[in-house]
């Protein structure tokens, strides 16, 4: 079954370029501003949208994305509202894939079966759940794949050749290669090691490989997509949100455009 994600990678392959995957937190800094941000992402140059599902205890995220999640939660964001946001986005855009990224507890509490029905209905295409390694596949991964939802796996520098087959056994859409040991937004990726690892992982999977963690500039995006099929930018965009807020921490007129400008800038790196 072909999904929006599969179709998007096929189109990009035909165009001969890599994907720009953009991460923003749903509801950051508030629902309406966040919806404006995601609605403008495709035009700014995003090929795939990763929508962060806020969680109080994001153990793999650095301070920037933690703060974004807390801003969204403080303004009343819930998983239900995040799905509503996807639905509203779909009214005007039926092509750009949306991947929900977060932690398992909100989905578990929502109820896995109910969540998959509602996420499909809303128009979400894939899931990245940080705290569900292959060892826990029957929790959400297998039910997702059965429901036609891509379950995208994180591969890391610790995913060695011995472990890789297990990591890629049940997965679809694309592979998200975490380029650094550590949390989001911490250190810049070492481009040499990215190249070597992407090429190593290709021996284990035919899926497109996107690289993220620590990517902030067009130049990094250009270098990474020489080898990878896509590049993920997250903390830099959430920083752009944070820096655009007023002293009370509220959105300003500049908030959506601050994100879109940065996306357009980094998109040049992917398209050059």
């Amino acid at each position: 079954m072909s999904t929006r994600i599969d179709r998007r990678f096929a189109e990009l392959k035909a165009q001969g370029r890599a994907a720009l995957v953009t991460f923003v937190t749903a509801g950051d800094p508030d629902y309406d501003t966040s919806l404006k941000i995601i609605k403008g992402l495709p035009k700014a140059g995003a090929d795939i949208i990763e929508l962060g599902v806020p969680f109080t205890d994001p153990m793999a995220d650095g301070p920037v994305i933690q703060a974004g999640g807390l801003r969204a939660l403080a303004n009343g964001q819930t998983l239900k509202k995040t799905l509503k946001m996807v639905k509203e986005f779909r009214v005007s855009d039926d092509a750009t894939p949306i991947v929900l990224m977060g932690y398992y507890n909100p989905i578990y509490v929502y109820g896995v079966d109910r969540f998959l029905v509602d996420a499909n209905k809303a128009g979400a295409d894939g899931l990245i759940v940080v705290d569900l390694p292959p060892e826990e596949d029957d929790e959400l991964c297998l039910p997702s794949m059965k429901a036609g939802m891509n379950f995208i796996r994180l591969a890391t520098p610790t995913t060695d050749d011995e472990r890789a087959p297990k990591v890629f056994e049940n997965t679809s859409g694309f592979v998200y290669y975490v380029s650094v040991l550590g949390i989001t937004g911490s250190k810049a990726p070492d481009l040499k090691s990215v190249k070597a690892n992407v090429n190593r992982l290709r021996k284990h999977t035919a899926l497109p490989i996107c690289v993220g963690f620590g990517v902030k500039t067009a130049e990094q995006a250009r270098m990474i997509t020489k080898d990878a099929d896509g590049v993920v930018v997250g903390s830099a965009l959430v920083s752009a949100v944070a820096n655009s807020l007023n002293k009370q921490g509220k959105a300003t007129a500049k908030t959506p455009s601050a994100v879109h400008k940065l996306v357009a800038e980094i998109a040049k790196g992917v398209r050059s």
Partner: protein
Amino acid sequence: MTNTVPNSYRTGPDERGLFGIYGGRFVAETLMPLILQLEQAYKDAKADPSFQAELDDFLEHYVSRPSPLYFAERLTEHLGGAKIYLKRDELNHTGAHKINNVMGQILLARRMGKKRIIAETGAGQHGVATATACARFGLECIIYMGEVDIARQMPNVFRMKLLGATVVPAKSGSRTLKDALNEALRDWVANVEDTFYCIGTVAGPAPYPEMVRDFQSVIGRETREQMLKREGRLPDSLVAAIGGGSNAMGLFHPFLDDKDVKIIGVEAAGYGLKKKHAASIAGGKPGILHGNRTYLLMDDDGQITEGHSISAGLDYPGIGPEHAWLHDMKRVEYVSATDKEALEAFQLCCKLEGIIPALEPSHALAHVMKIAPKLPKDHLMVMNMCGRGDKDIFTVADILGVKL
């Protein structure tokens, strides 16, 4: 899920790290290979008699085990019912049960060749124990502690620093124990090669709940032996306080298959179960946090809520997964005690027994005060005195309106 009575309550977890539906390995992929490596290293160590011999030697000569099983005569007289024994784990080196587990994990870290130790701490007892063992073996030690806890547990922060540890404040979220755990996990993800994460309670991803339980079970094994020697039979009931639940699991586990032994865990009811509290079983529901599925305090959206207890050591929005299972199986009864009840028990214990208890076991004692008077005089009750209260005198003085 069926709740049929198993042949034994002591065989868990299964190969996936599960106790019933609880436990598991809900961690980021970066950590997964390490978790598997740790599991194997622990399995090997457990099967190696020289590991246990080395641990036993340190427990005897460094920690000062076995700890006494003390008949609390005046408390018994005062309450007028059950015969109350206190398992004196507050007499351990560093003043709490935490060191039992730390010695085990640090010896394991040495065996694995890890040179850098990280840990989280709430009240500071686990942090002090970890800093102590690291000093003893010359290992680098980094302790994550919530900013709020740092402010209310200054003496322990200073102790850790004296012992050569670096104390890093956790500044995110509620800035207490759960956030310290988040920060420790973030450190581990970034430093997988050389770092050993020494978790302080029976929670976290497998194999931690099992490993910490095994290291703490020395409490229950000794109690069993000591009681048989003193009274010629097993106790009728066991009572212990529960935050994450390591002192309780240590006391309970060796008795789980003795069906005539009634077992009671006491959660922290804070200001009361209808107000702010830290009783995950009484007021929470199953969810996933810090690598395991267990009872958690959270809202309808699955967001973790902040617990409250007068005791920084019980102020955690979750509970070890094995406790969650024992609750569902109805093998252990989980009850709670409020801040106020714990404070009364704290004062009573000081006056009647000449023992200043930590605020954590004061919760257990508060429950003993509720049930002991109604029980017959030949009822043998063991309460785990898992920590001493020196660290808490400032908190208590503050609440009693005394300026030090």
